[in-house]
């Protein structure tokens, strides 16, 4: 008994000692080296894999710059950059005018990569790739087309043996940039969608069941026959899901690929406004995949701390040049060349206390 007591006592002391040493050891390590900089970012979940790749690659090149990115969602990213609790924010959709006004300084949108939303389905006995025109997609998600063998679907899919089964629609249940891009597209192609549902990260879906995240939607589509849903391009490619071709604004059916997404950005470069806040869904052009979008990093034009600002701008400059080469490997579409030029101009305009940082 006394041996037991003594050993417990010893263990308690040991734990106390170790934790004290741990604290002591931590304290100096937490401080930043005076030559380097420590940057914090937060926001969209969609570009998180490529941002993490950028951080680790950039960290190897510049070991004295430490950058953290937390994928808390676009909404959180916007809120945190407004509150200046992070050095950069990230959002899939461009910020709204009222959100920009609510920020304490002028915010710049730096596009980083592009993504797309693809239509995936589970239809037994149909092996060919399905084709959808915009009106058909809108009508299915509005609940107006109820059967797979509806003549409107059959019209675009000659030769496919479409079953007489009910269509089960699967959508995202969590608030998501993917839903925002998809509903933005539907609002552009269907006046009825625009009026009844509108555009947003958590729309009120007229029909269907909700799956949480890309994996939830995919799981329900894979396991339920006669379903249709939408997921991110990268997710569909990595999981080899059946993906539909969508008719674009120029009347061509286009397979979603990295090239057809970059083409959508290039095609809409001419009418991209100066602040680069743009929706590129339903863009004109023969080889354009119509449900594509940018994702952005948000930075203040006037940086408070020159050293930190310089480190941030250098990192972003590296991102839109060297970083773009890593996009394809992770199934993101890289920026087209003229958008890179315009993003460069944005980065060049960043100042700290009136002096340019590049």
């Amino acid at each position, binding site marked *: 008994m006394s041996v037991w007591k003594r050993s417990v006592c010893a263990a308690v002391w040991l734990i106390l000692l170790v934790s004290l040493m741990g604290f002591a050891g931590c304290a100096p390590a937490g401080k930043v080296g005076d030559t380097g900089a420590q940057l914090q970012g937060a926001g969209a*979940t969609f570009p998180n894999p490529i941002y993490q790749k950028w951080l680790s690659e950039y960290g190897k090149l510049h070991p004295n710059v430490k950058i953290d990115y937390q994928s*808390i*969602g*676009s*909404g*959180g990213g*916007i*809120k945190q950059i407004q509150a200046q609790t992070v050095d950069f924010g990230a959002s899939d959709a461009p910020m709204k005018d009222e*959100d920009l006004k609510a920020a304490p300084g002028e915010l710049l949108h730096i596009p980083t990569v592009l993504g797309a939303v693809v239509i995936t389905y589970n239809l037994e006995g149909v092996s060919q790739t399905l084709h959808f025109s915009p009106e058909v997609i809108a009508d299915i998600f509005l609940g107006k087309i109820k059967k797979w063998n509806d003549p409107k679907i059959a019209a675009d899919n000659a030769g496919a043996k479409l079953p007489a089964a*009910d269509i*089960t629609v699967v959508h995202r*249940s*969590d*608030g*998501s*940039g993917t839903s925002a891009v998809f509903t933005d597209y539907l609002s552009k192609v269907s006046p009825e969608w625009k009026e009844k*549902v*509108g*555009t*947003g*990260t*958590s*729309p*009120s*879906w007229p029909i*269907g*069941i*909700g*799956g*949480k995240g890309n994996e*939830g939607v995919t*799981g*329900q589509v894979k*396991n*339920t026959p006669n379903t249709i849903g939408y997921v991110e391009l990268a997710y569909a490619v990595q999981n080899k899901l059946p993906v539909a071709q969508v008719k674009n604004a120029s009347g061509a059916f286009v397979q979603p690929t990295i090239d057809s997404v970059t083409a959508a950005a290039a095609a809409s470069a001419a009418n991209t406004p100066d602040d680069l806040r743009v929706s590129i869904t339903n863009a004109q052009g023969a080889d354009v995949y119509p449900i594509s979008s940018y994702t952005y990093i948000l930075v203040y034009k006037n940086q408070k701390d020159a050293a930190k600002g310089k480190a941030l701008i250098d990192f972003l400059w590296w991102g839109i040049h060297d970083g773009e080469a890593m996009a394809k490997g992770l199934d993101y579409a890289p920026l087209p060349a003229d958008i890179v030029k315009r993003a460069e101009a944005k980065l060049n305009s960043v100042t700290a206390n009136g002096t340019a940082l590049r």
Partner: protein
Amino acid sequence: MSATTPENVPVREKHSDWRRVLSPTGNRGDAIFRALMLGVGLFMVAIVIAMMIALASDSMLSIRQFGIGFLTGRQWNPIKGEFGALPFIYGTIVSSLIALIISVPFSLGIAVFLVEQAPHYIARPVGFLVELLAAIPSVVYGLWGIFVLAPFLRVYVEPPLGRWFGWLPLFQGSITGIGLLTGGIILAIMVTPIISAVVRDVLAAVPGSQREAALALGATKWEMIRVVLVNGAPGIAGAVILGLGRALGETMAVTMVIGNRPDISVSLFEPSYTIASAIANEFTEATQALHLSALVELGLILFFVTFIVNGIARLLVWNVTKQTGGVGRAA
């Protein structure tokens, strides 16, 4: 302790007041222990109050905008700024009820088997396995729900239910394997180990003399078990309340299989939504202040729903134990 020096005396006099309150026996260790425990207990109460205040203040915007209509509204449309919580409240309560209806008989059966019937070499490993089930993270249950349970229900359970009981509005509608029934069943599976583990301990605590007395009066094994169950009734009810608490607040697993649709439909095959799922789903991307505030108010409602449901359960227990005159307060 040199307490006899004259200048120390008044100081001790001063302290003696609170010391007498805290420790009538005058033992210093007792006083410290008592104060510590009092502090911990009050801290618990303070956390609950602080939580309620935080929830209420953050949901003020939504409370002012919608008032009592928030509780009865059926529309949830963040784009148009319409928020009504009734479908979520309905989904939360009904899915938890389904869970209890399925899991309570199962849990009682498991516990009775483990305590009264199984030989030691079976009771030990089976008891261990049941407790292991309680330790599985809920995301894992959710994934299993999507990939195994939902397809199984769609193919083998829901079609016969629809065929035989389709005259009941509960089992009408399209069969997808995703919906209120699936959500309730997955909750039942998650709640069963908790309830059965607690009930097992309750039954084990019923004195052996009760069993011996019943058997000596000529009771069969079944009649003896009934005596044990009646004796353990308050503890069993406590176990069920514990399970209900988990079912009401469960998030991930339910979200994966319930279909996440803010609609009220009588059919158990149709998709539904729970309060906890709605908060988890929409919180990250809620940019509008009103949307955020409405989500916080949902949290506040869940708080109250849990309070009320627990209160009703306790009241029921109290009534039951008064009627049956349950003696051995085993738990």
